[in-house]
């Protein structure tokens, strides 16, 4: 049974997106500052219009701060270093590559949170060292071959399911972030 599971997992994780949509890494905590549906449709408006309020009027006490977005949705690699949020298969690019909409936010904005106490260096775009971890060895190797990053928990979103409905990693025993 277990070998079969591994084989199925191997095959399914070959895709970074499938007919169900892009695979988007899960963020910190239980929920985003707004509904997934709202965010999916409106995050671009928040980013574009909110920024005028912040830059020109100096209003910063909104929940939709880009720094907060990065803080929650950034992932770490096996070395416990932050991966740039605009790197391939990370939070932004997973959807934006799928819809072929180029974003330029992080040529200016910080793509990782400011240096945390437990990290020595920030993950640079496109480079990663990975440590083979026995339970997810196959997954790690396969992901490294494809993307150059160690794959972390990924969620497949459907139109009706919320992020919290997906419990794939529980079955596999992968550790939560």
């Amino acid at each position, binding site marked *: 049974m277990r070998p079969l599971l591994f084989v199925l997992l191997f095959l399914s994780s070959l895709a970074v997106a499938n007919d169900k949509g892009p695979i988007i890494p899960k963020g910190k905590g239980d929920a985003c500052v707004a509904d997934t549906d709202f965010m999916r449709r409106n995050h671009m408006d928040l980013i574009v219009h909110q*920024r005028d*309020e912040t*830059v*020109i*009027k*100096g*209003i*910063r*006490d909104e929940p939709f701060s880009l*720094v907060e977005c*990065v803080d929650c949705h950034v992932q770490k690699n096996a070395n416990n270093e932050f991966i*740039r949020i605009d790197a391939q298969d990370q939070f932004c690019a997973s959807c934006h590559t799928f819809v072929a909409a180029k974003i330029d936010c992080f*040529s*200016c*904005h*910080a*793509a990782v*949170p*400011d240096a945390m106490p437990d990290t020595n260096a*920030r993950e*640079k*775009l496109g480079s990663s060292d990975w440590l083979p971890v026995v339970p997810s060895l196959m997954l790690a190797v396969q992901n490294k071959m494809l993307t150059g990053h160690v794959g972390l928990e990924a969620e497949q979103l459907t139109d009706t399911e919320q992020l919290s409905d997906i419990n794939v990693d529980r079955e596999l025993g992968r550790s939560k972030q």
Partner: protein
Amino acid sequence: MSSHDAHNNADLARRHFLRKLGVLTAAASLPALLPTVSGASVKALGGASSEQRWGLLIDTSKCASGCDACVRGCNEEHGITGTGNDDTDAQWIRKIDLKDNLTSEETSLPMLCQHCDSAPCVDVCPTGASFKRADGIVLVNKHTCIGCRYCMMACPYKARSFIHEPLTDQLSHAPRGKGTVESCTLCVHRIDKGNLNPACAESCEREGYSAIQFGDLNDPDSDIVKAITLSNAEEVRADLSLNTGVRYANL
């Protein structure tokens, strides 16, 4: 005759009626006018307000010639590192050493964006990216900046820098990117959080000189305004009548 009287009476009655109507309208609209007069609505919205005008007072007699604490403090605060090209590296604040030809007196001072009231950079910007915020801080809105560098040409203080290389290690509170112009923000990210102490002033104080003082130029009771009045602080290039927010004492 009686018809004339009647006509007059009617006119008078009309006049009285209109007068009463006018008084009533004025009385009714008075409460609606009062809140806008007090200006309370601006503060309630949050953000920058024109009630403050942030500025710096730099005492050049306290500024030591070889010291660059303010420069180091600013660079550290905003993640400004060298790119290997000294000529084109960004500098938000720099030290200038002056020598008076007549008296041979030497002065050292930091030069940074002066946050002018009538800033030339704001005037010339073709996109409106260079703007003056309500509280007097002159900023570059890098979303709108196209990198034409007209503001760099216009600035009499050479305060602005252009970023020539792609950057990857920005700090979260100081977004900077290739192709845009930047300059001193008076540490607006600190001010907006209530920390009224720019990095340069903090560095200078840590170094022991305390030559840079930050404060509200609109508040006549603030320390900075009192110090400016006492020291007869002046603007650099006062002949340009820019009404700068940065004043220098003992120049």
